[in-house]
């Protein structure tokens, strides 16, 4: 299904969605970053001057955090020995504004947590949630012309911003909405049909956009699989790691967690919390034995896991090139930076 929406249509859609979902929209925060925050309703948005920030830089927080949050209750253990599990959400989530990379990350994590035995704690938040992709002319300009490549799937609805018309104001912006399933159809059936020709043009533009970084990852992956990268390289990179864990915490396909208990008189809340394989204690055993006991091994794992191990296990590189770790790393050794250095040095 292909629809054509105006800005007003879009707000109307959001208002309707917000009745059945916890609808989160890209929103500009005080410091200038964009985050997914609750849709205030089009009336409130008008009154408070809150405009959903549909265009701009990538969403700062990884969107998978809404299904796999930093602190995530697992079970509650009562003093009498009974165990209870969190109630299912009162409304499912609807995440609007995910770009192609973020949607790929959600798809990867979906697959990871759905593998048997399926992770019910993840699925309780994920099942029934609506994903609304965002692409077209709504980027931050980092690719030159503010164009974000089309996701072409991986979501329920994809909103594609059409090329802005100089004379038209922001409110008159036009959107193409591609609907990928029945749930999406149910929400968009009432809107005007969109032009397949225009969609085709945008698709074409997507295809012609460079895949330089994709190629970089694959080159790096091949070098690593062929064991072409010596430990001295990892020693060098790891000497620049200050063990902040940021690369893991911002990575939308990182799923490692540890478990924490918090006990009060009411009982024990057992939660999982984001973990980082860059910490020495990540694999350290009580005996002191530690399979990841050196900086070198930990840094090597961070890259290997995404470029070698996950392809072996899941059939695909699990770095979606969202750029978050490169932005979050205080010393400049994020995924792309490391791959660039690695490919430069070890490609014969």
């Amino acid at each position: 299904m292909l629809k054509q929406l105006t800005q007003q249509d879009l707000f109307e859609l959001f208002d309707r969605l917000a009745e059945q979902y916890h609808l989160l929209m890209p929103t500009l925060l005080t410091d200038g970053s964009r985050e997914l925050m609750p849709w205030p309703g089009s009336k409130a948005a008008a009154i408070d001057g809150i405009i959903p920030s549909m265009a701009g830089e990538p969403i700062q927080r990884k969107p998978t955090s809404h299904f796999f949050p930093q602190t995530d209750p697992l079970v509650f253990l009562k003093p009498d020995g009974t165990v209870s599990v969190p109630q299912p959400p009162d409304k499912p989530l609807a995440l609007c504004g995910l770009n192609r990379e973020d949607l790929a990350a959600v798809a990867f994590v979906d697959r990871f947590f759905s593998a048997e035995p399926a992770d019910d704690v993840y699925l309780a938040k994920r099942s029934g949630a609506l994903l609304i992709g965002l692409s077209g002319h709504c980027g931050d300009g980092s690719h030159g012309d503010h164009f974000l490549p089309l996701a072409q799937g991986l979501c329920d609805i994809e909103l594609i911003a059409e090329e802005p018309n100089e004379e038209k104001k922001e409110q008159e912006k036009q959107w193409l909405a591609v609907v990928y399933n029945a749930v999406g159809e149910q929400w968009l059936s009432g809107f005007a049909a969109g032009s397949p020709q225009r969609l085709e043009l945008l698709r074409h533009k997507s295809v012609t956009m460079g895949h330089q970084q994709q190629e970089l990852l694959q080159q790096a992956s091949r070098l690593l699989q062929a064991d072409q990268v010596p430990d001295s390289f990892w020693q060098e990179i790891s000497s620049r790691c200050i063990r902040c864990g940021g690369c893991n915490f911002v990575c939308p396909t990182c799923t490692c967690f540890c478990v924490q208990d918090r006990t009060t008189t009411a009982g024990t809340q057992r939660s999982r919390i984001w973990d980082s394989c860059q910490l020495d204690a990540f694999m350290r055993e009580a005996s002191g034995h530690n399979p990841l006991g050196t900086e070198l091994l930990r840094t090597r794992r961070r890259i290997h896991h995404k470029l070698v191990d996950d392809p072996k296990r899941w059939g695909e590189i699990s770095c979606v090139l969202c750029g978050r770790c490169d932005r979050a790393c205080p010393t400049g050794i994020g995924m792309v930076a490391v791959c660039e250095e690695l490919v430069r040095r070890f490609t014969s």
Partner: protein
Amino acid sequence: MNGNKPSEMNATLTTCPYCGTGCNFYLLSGSDGRLSGVEPAAKHIVSKGRLCMKGWNAHAFVHHPDRLSTPQLKRDGALQDCDWDTALATVHQRLQAIADRHGPDSLMFFSSAKVSNEENYLMMKLARAGFSTNNVDHCARLCHSSTVVGLAETLGSGAMTNTLDCFDHTDLVFVIGSNTTEQHPLIGGRILQALRHDTKLLVADSRKIRLAQHANIHLRHHNGSDVALINGMMRQILVDGLEDRDFIARRTENFDALRDSLEPFTPEYVAAITGLEPQQIIDATRLYAGADNAMIVFAMGITQHSHGVDNVRALSNLALMTGNLGRPGTGINPLRGQNNVQGACDMGALPNVYTGYQQVADPQARLKFSTAWGKELPETPGLMATHAIEAAAAGSVRGMLIMGENPMLSEPNQTLVRKALENLDFLAVIDIFPTETAQLADVVLPAACYAERDGTYTSTERRVQRGRQAVETPGDARADWRILCDLLQRCGIKANYESPAQIMDEITTLTPSYGGISYQRLEGGHGLQWPCPDADHPGTPILHQEQCTRGKGRFSPTRYRPPKELPDEKYPLLLNTGRTAVHWHTGTMTRRSHLLHREEPHAFAEVNPQDAGQLQICDRQLIRVSSRRGSIQLKARLTERVPAGQIFIPFHFAEGAANVLTNNALDPESGIPEFKVCAVRVEPC
């Protein structure tokens, strides 16, 4: 933490509660009012979307079950719950009674580098106006009091001269006595990034810290030999003719005295004191003095000595001699350890000054504050925190109010501290967790943590920034400023502020360097760097640009004095103390944050393998470390990070407390203890 509502529905921008770098992040919370996580502020001028491991876990302790949530009063030798009115009335009455009987100076007030500027202001107002004593101090005494004294004398301002952005365009960074990548990780990260763009790095540190791996030159000089090293470098600069003669002539005074004082510090003489090779000193000198723009970065390795002020003076002399001052990418840059230790000093939570370093001994300043507060104010400077502990042990200080500090673990010579606190007639503690200090209190007042109150914090680069309330306090706990307002009111001082913003309005009228700061201006999220004298002033990223705060930069000659206690036959190893990357001070917050606790769950001592071999100690073995003041047991960690002859113990751990061992030898001017050097003996258990 919410089972049936999304957990990231609210995002509150605030300032990190840990080190003084001043990173900002969003606290994420659900509609149940519980924090679920942290996201670095992507566009913030300092954090730039980055945080360290502590920052990433800054939400983790907030809802810990150990949080204090009800006031407690000691009855029959045990702390028992009571109501706020009883608790506050008891604090006021008991302190007042002690003041009435033994004089106001028998009281001591510990303010805190962990609370806001507004709260520090109220605390010092409570001491001075409420109880008529200048006996107010805070933990800056233990970290950068040497800096404040040393830089105030030489430059006129005891703060970081430059701004963090300067790391991005300097030619050389000279890091001495700062384990920057662990203690100010985002600054350390910036230094590592700068090295990728041809910036040079000179590191002087006895430990092989991460920055040392990347340094052009790493000097492993003996702990406590800094004055000799710096004087030696300055002498060599003059020998090589690398001094900035124009700068010295235009902008400084007392150069001749300095030059004369340097004469004995030949490379050979300095080498004998520092344990370095003469050529290393010459090479390091040429590296530093050869840079067009060089930044000096220092921290506790410089300040925490019985000659801490001299160390700072020497560094200041070095910067002045080479003209590395008042320009981008230069300066002398003390890294402040706590998120508001700069602010607590600025706010006059010190025994000798009001806000903005206005001297209590200055009649005009005293008149200004007494007029504003409607109360006669005492004129003699009060007791320093370290001296107050000694005075309590001796019986001349009898009542204390401690807010957000844990001297039981943080002060040197714990045996003495315990004796001092137990000796008090009355001890009240305001805190968020039942600390080792709170265990000894007569009244414990449960406070708000950083995520539960509004306020401002001043970072190491003098950047005043907002902290914002994201969630409610647990149980009956109250924001510190509300507790202090109540006590002020009970003392008859008007304190009916409705918000911290109103307190800041009062501060700005009394404090020239904060004159242009207001909550409205801070709303934008990037803060303002003082001095910011008026509402139109954009703030001051770099100090001493045209001239120094005091006018001419003053060379202040120093002579080498060895540490008070050096290894000998009976105690043959040198003990160095400090922190780890994942823990914060006495561990009250980080040891209750799961990931951080898991990373370093136990007390440990870094031991050089060479020493370990001689002592027949293996890795992870339990050892006993003893000094003349006490003895502790903890696990050995064999590592080349410490040089042979030295062991390093972090002071976070109550069960293996480094400060049982440390020496309370104080710098005569700043009162800072010699945390970085004492003599110990190590034996296997």
